[in-house]
């Protein structure tokens, strides 16, 4: 707002709207639907369905490597995917090997194990049905190493037991021992590194979940190098819906992604609204400017 200009009309005011007003709108667009628990339903798109179908088609006892490549900041987006994938894997009796390329992923593994596996599937045995391999530094270098030799890096599991004392680790030699790699996160290091350094050279199927930011740049790898992808909270909501469709008993479990779609949609509309307003005022402003130029008889 410019108080020096008395001729400033409604459109100029809006055109030069203070960013803090936009911030306020966004804040309310999120707060109000959250308070009112407003939500929408989802249908799985092919790229999400592909992941679901892959897990659905794995025989019992197949080995799935789940890499927790994210941090607390992306928990709201990625955790719902992990929860749904873990539930699905437990239901299918797959062996789950959990590791992290991100230092921050370390804690998230323990949390996910507690919240999903231990709580909802208490008959699953640590070391037989699932194992926490913890975090190791090295980014793509780590993938590079475990592609040929897993136990070179993982001499113990995250609980400190020697790796060969963990029953489900005995017949694991390297990445090629796994039937599916799921990389969750989508940042660096993440799905791209798993595809380039693990999946491609080792010819192992890779799928995963990514924040919506990183999802578009993983599209070029789909479907040849990446068999499927959950993109952002929408992807997670779609997976949750697919899971509920396949196993209706999960309806009573938490489905945070589906819940989250409400506030997102509202905030989305607010942003679209501001873009429209921005353009309308921009054009009106330009028209007026042109008019003024003509009146003054000077062409700048």
């Amino acid at each position, binding site marked *: 707002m410019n108080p020096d200009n008395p001729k400033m009309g409604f459109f100029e005011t809006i055109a030069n709207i203070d960013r803090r007003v936009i911030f306020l709108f966004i804040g309310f667009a999120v707060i109000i639907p959250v308070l009112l628990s407003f939500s929408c339903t989802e249908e799985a798109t092919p790229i999400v369905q592909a992941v679901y179908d892959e897990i659905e088609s794995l025989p019992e006892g197949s080995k799935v490597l789940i890499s927790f490549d994210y941090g607390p900041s992306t928990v709201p987006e990625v955790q719902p995917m992990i929860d749904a994938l873990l539930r699905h894997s437990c239901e299918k009796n797959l062996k789950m090997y959990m590791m992290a390329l991100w230092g921050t992923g370390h804690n998230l593994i323990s949390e996910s194990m507690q919240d999903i596996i231990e709580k909802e599937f208490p008959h699953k045995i640590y070391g037989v049905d699932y194992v926490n391999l913890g975090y190791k530094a090295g980014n793509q270098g780590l993938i590079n190493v475990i592609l040929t030799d897993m136990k070179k890096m993982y001499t113990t599991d995250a609980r400190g037991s020697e790796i060969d004392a963990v029953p489900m680790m005995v017949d694991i030699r390297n990445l090629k021992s796994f039937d599916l790699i799921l990389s969750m996160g989508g940042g660096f290091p993440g799905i791209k590194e798993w595809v380039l350094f693990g999946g491609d050279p080792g010819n192992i199927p890779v799928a995963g979940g990514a924040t919506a930011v990183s999802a*578009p740049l993983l599209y070029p790898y789909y479907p040849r190098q990446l068999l499927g992808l959950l993109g952002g909270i929408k992807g997670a909501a779609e997976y949750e819906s697919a899971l509920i469709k396949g196993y209706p008993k999960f309806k009573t479990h938490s489905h945070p992604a589906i819940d989250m779609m409400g506030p997102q949609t509202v905030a989305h509309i607010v942003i679209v609204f501001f873009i429209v307003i921005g353009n309308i005022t921009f054009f009106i402003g330009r028209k007026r400017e042109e008019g003024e130029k003509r009146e003054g008889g000077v062409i700048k």
Partner: protein
Amino acid sequence: MRKDLVWLFAGILFFGLLYLLNWGVKAISTDLLVWIGAFLTLAILSFLYQDNAFYKFAEHLFVGVSAAYWMCMGFWNTLVPNLIAKLHPPIVKGVLPAIAEKPPEYWYIIPAALGIMFLMRLSPKAPWISRWALAFIVGTTTGLNLVRYLRSDFLGQIKSTLIPVIVVENGSLSVGGSFSNIVIVVGVLCGLIYFFFSKEHKGLFGVASRVGIYILMITFGASFGYTVMARISLLVGRMRFLLGDWMGLLQ
């Protein structure tokens, strides 16, 4: 300054009202740790209005804690199991009993030496030695990256672009499919032409380069638009924490 206070007051009033309306649903948190989390959350959010003492406090705390976090992670997860335990296993007996029994692997002396070389930077006498370690790091990354990018991002992407521009479906020509494939092929080619550096973008070449820049703009616009939703979900997570865990306004 007055205006700020009015806003603050309005905010408190708004949430107070919400709180009153939902009274009896659930009480505000009594957990000190949740209060700390809420305080820090609000301190960062306050930066949206302007820089202030709360933000500065949160920022400085964040920096200090994270620097130490990373060091501890590096120490316990890399240095201890991957260096100390390799050079002298018995030393980690109290920490990683499983590894302590293994024979030492002396070639880990090399990275240790390189690490110490790097720290020579701090020495007044021979800081230049640190460049040897640096040269090693750079050489490693460079060598690894060269082949990787060549294989996956260069050769891999080219292969993916190899698609027919005339698509036949169920024995008849698919106009939509052919059009899409033409757009992909032309898009990739023109996009690459935009990245030509040693030739002036004039004439036909200039036209292709213009098409290339439009393709890039579509890419950027689309990726931006696609991402917006995710960015909001992060805020939803925080608001749930504030409204639910802290204020107890959510069921």
